[in-house]
């Protein structure tokens, strides 16, 4: 029997499984207070998914406000839409608006690696589409457990195949991302997915349902039993090895990229013909989310006829229809006179479209099922006025101990061991070539990819006439963030910023995906609070706004949280992609290698300490955002004046790794002569450094500019196309073939 509003009113004391749906006692009590009665099954399903951590940001909201507080009007001036919309939108010039966002799909990807990762890509792409933009490219920051662990062999190939399988079939180039290994992700890998899209400024579509009489049209795939409860059960609960509770059975959605590709083309044609008044994608929490968000963003009420929703399973209850997370669906608000034209476009693309409701007078969201009212709620209470928690925060007791355990006492290699260490580090899983992963992704489709992995940042052309384009990079070193979440978040921002600048683009906006452990753990909340502050303060210092983001909590195994992983994505603009700076050296006949920035003895959280000694302690490298900004300006100026032929950011693995990569990518040798203590010079991870290659003819002009702008620089070597080796003066040389074998051999040996 269907639980109607009438039934709920007459059976006030009926017991409801609110706890199994993830609601706490006081949350359930509040729902009753809002409604003045007990909720129906359908209402309970709606509130429980929409008030889950994943959808409501109930533990993070109080902290995320800090982003708004630290954003100045000047930073806001280029933003066309920001936090709260499906994705942030930035004006990049020439009449173009670019929208980008990262989201997590961590828990589903652990349960079912292929489908979890695939639907992660699908979800973020629909977010971008819902802004009215054509999705143009994707990137995937991934984190895995120990590379040689048995379960990693299940999880990694599945996730990579899922990202590729969905993105390739969807026809979106994958232009970058990360693959990082650390034991803390063993039982909780991270799958973050970024999508970037573009539209003409005047075509921006925001989700709202204004206009009484407008029709609500659900289009795309049919609604099935997949992914029900995925939000509340999967994303907001910890995986626990010991408790075999039934409710933790997997409920991962299944993706169909072909349907999504058709949905994209169909939606873009609908936008182009002006047939859409408001639009919302269906992601986590399905119709519950789409209808309550559309209704609460509009100026009226909404009536939805749930029995009209096309289904692919028999006997689905109203609660199941509302909370199904079936993929590849969109919900549009359409003016009545446009409905026929809307349906005709959907028919052309063989997309199922159904009028499921309309915007009505009043301020209630009413959902009926065969003429009986099953939901009657104020939509804002579902979508925006969920619970807010100011969770306890406690700096971990062992934080001081961790920071006192510096890497200073670790045995350092002798001079005659340094050359071998260059190779060892190049072959270490975190520094090794990620070609095994990225060659499963199409990076060419649509013909706009100017830079892709293994470049520092990905770059796509937006305007074929003017050559205007954007560059993107995502970064985070979880070890740095563990040692100091505030500085670590700034370091993540600094690296993404630097990577974008190293392509020749000017950084303009930031997005993030904040992956942390349980918010109910005060130590985790401290990490979270610190990281948010660090990122927000860093953005204010750089003068670029955070336009959106995503929070993923409960990333832990048992009571052990992952390394705090605030992945930061930076978007940059380049007026003409033809002046992009490549990563590989050797493009010009004679090039000088210059190291910009300063090198200090900084090994806390370094890849060397991790890989060679299994050590994590001390302080992360110092971050100086003024210096990062100056460095960015010098790189862009150098690119604009044609003074730089290649650039590569220094990060994990230091100068040695940057040299290995720039030689191997460019397929030419180099002779380098680092100064001072060679171990520090080669392997320190000091921030704010970039290796650039400048044509000999431009060398004087370039270093004069650096000197005039007070950017420290040092000549560290020359490109030597004849040598086919990387030679470090005073140490000897490594043939490029040997280096390539070391760098490229690791992942195939682990996963083939």
């Amino acid at each position, binding site marked *: 029997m269907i639980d109607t509003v009438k039934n709920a009113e007459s059976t006030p004391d009926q017991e409801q499984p609110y706890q199994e749906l993830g609601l706490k006692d006081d949350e359930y009590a509040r729902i009753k207070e809002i409604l003045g009665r007990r909720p129906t099954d359908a209402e309970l399903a709606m509130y429980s998914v929409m008030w889950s951590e994943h959808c409501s940001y109930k533990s993070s909201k109080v902290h995320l406000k800090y982003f708004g507080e630290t954003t100045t009007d000047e930073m806001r001036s280029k933003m066309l839409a920001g936090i709260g919309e499906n994705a942030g939108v930035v004006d990049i010039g020439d009449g173009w608006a670019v929208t980008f966002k990262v989201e997590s799909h961590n828990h589903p990807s652990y349960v079912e690696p292929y489908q979890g990762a695939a639907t992660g890509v699908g979800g973020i792409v629909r977010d971008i589409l819902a802004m009215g933009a054509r999705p143009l490219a994707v990137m995937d920051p991934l984190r895995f457990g120990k590379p040689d662990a048995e379960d990693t062999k299940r999880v990694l190939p599945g996730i990579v*195949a899922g990202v*590729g*399988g969905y993105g*390739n*079939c*969807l*026809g979106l180039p994958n232009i970058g991302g990360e693959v990082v290994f650390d034991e803390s992700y063993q039982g909780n890998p991270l799958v973050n997915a970024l999508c970037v899209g573009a539209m003409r400024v005047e075509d921006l579509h925001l989700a709202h349902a204004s206009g009484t009489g407008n029709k609500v049209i659900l289009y795309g795939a049919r609604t099935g039993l997949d992914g029900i409860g995925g939000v509340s059960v999967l994303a907001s609960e910890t995986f626990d090895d010991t408790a075999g509770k039934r409710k933790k059975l997997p409920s991962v959605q299944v993706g*169909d*990229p*072909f*349907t999504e*590709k*058709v949905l994209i*083309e169909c939606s873009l044609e609908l936008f182009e013909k002006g047939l859409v008044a408001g639009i919302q994608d269906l992601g986590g929490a399905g119709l519950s989310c789409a209808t309550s968000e559309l209704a609460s963003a509009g100026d009226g009420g909404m009536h939805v006829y749930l029995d009209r929703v096309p289904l692919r399973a028999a006997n689905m209850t109203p609660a199941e229809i509302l909370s199904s997370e079936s993929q590849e669906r969109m919900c549009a608000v359409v003016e009545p006179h446009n409905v026929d034209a809307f349906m005709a476009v959907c028919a052309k*693309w*063989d997309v199922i479209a159904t009028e499921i409701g309309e915007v009505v007078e009043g301020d209630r969201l009413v959902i009926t099922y065969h003429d009986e009212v099953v939901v009657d709620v104020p939509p804002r209470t579902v979508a925006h006025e969920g619970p807010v928690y100011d969770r306890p925060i406690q700096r971990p007791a062992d934080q001081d101990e961790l920071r006192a355990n510096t890497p200073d006492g670790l045995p350092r290699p002798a001079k005659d061991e340094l050359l071998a260490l260059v190779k060892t580090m190049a072959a270490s899983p975190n520094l090794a070539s990620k070609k095994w992963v*990225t*060659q*499963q*992704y*199409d*990076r*060419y*489709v*649509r*013909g*706009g*990819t*100017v830079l892709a992995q293994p470049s520092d940042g990905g770059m796509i*052309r937006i305007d*074929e006439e003017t050559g205007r384009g954007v560059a993107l990079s995502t970064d985070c070193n979880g070890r740095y963030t563990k040692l100091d979440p505030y500085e670590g978040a700034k370091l993540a921002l600094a690296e993404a910023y630097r990577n974008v600048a190293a392509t020749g683009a000017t950084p303009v906006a930031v997005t993030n995906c904040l992956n942390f452990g349980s918010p109910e753990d005060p130590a985790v909340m401290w990490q979270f609070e610190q990281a948010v502050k660090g990122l927000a303060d860093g953005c204010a210092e750089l003068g670029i706004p955070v336009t959106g983001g995503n929070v993923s909590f409960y990333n832990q195994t048992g009571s052990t949280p992952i390394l705090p992983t605030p992945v930061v994505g930076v978007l940059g603009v380049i007026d003409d*992609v*033809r002046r992009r700076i490549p990563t590989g050296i050797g493009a010009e006949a004679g090039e000088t290698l210059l190291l910009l920035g300063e090198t200090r003895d900084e090994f806390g959280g370094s890849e060397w300490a991790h890989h060679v000694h299994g050590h994590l302690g001390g302080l992360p490298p110092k971050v100086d955002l003024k210096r990062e900004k100056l460095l960015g300006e010098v790189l862009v100026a150098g690119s604009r004046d044609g003074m730089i032929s290649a650039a590569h950011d220094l990060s994990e693995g230091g100068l040695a790794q940057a040299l290995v990569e720039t030689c191997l990518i460019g397929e030419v040798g180099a002779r380098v002569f680092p100064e001072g203590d060679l171990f520090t010079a080669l392997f320190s991870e000091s921030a704010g450094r970039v290796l650039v290659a400048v044509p000999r003819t431009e060398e004087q002009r370039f270093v004069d500019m650096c000197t005039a702008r007070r950017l420290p620089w040092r000549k560290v070597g020359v490109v030597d196309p004849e040598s086919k080796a990387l030679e470090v003066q005073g140490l000897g040389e490594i043939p490029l073939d040997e280096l390539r074998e070391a760098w490229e051999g690791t992942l195939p040996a682990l996963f*083939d």
Partner: protein
Amino acid sequence: MRVGVITFPGTLDDVDAQRAVRHADGEAVPLWHGDHDLKGVDAVIVPGGFSYGDYLRCGAIARFAPVMQEVVEAANKGMPVLGICNGFQILAEAHLLPGALTRNEKLHFVCRDQWLRVENNTTAWTTRYDRNAEILIPLKSGEGSYQADEDTLKELEDEHRIVFRYVGDNPNGSRNDIAGITNARGNVVGLMPHPEHAIDALTGPTDDGLGMFLSLLDTVVKA
């Protein structure tokens, strides 16, 4: 020169193929899968992607599309037709070209810059290349392993109908390192790698692919 570029639901590289035609000073004419209409074009490109999702054997559904019936008829009368990647699979399914494309040897999707040797420069699409020239263009496919029976392979070899062969490591397990072939008449060519992604060194590894579209220009002008 008017060159039709077919779009099936699930086609992905149609925009790239159209751009490549324009780079060769041709006019790109979009053709829709559901129409029995080639719009009077001089040649047709069947581009890459996942037609109808390709959840069955690749190209198995697309060959039955209304537009393909027109393509087969025109090809049999000598119209130049190029199938790239999924387009090659569709042309094989439509029996315009012999053999079949199967899952890559290691089962993974492979996207890489691939060296090819041009072994036949007499087809409608390859006259601008020197015979045995080596070109670098992207390969990106999960089902690119060319398979055919011994007799067919012998016939292809004997009649010099292998147009492109992989140089270096065979990326997918294709028989005889075959990357692309032609029909007996030389007007229909299918290949797995993507010349339309190599028309400009800015967005591709090289501009080596442009030669195919310029070759077509010569063919159409001569005809």
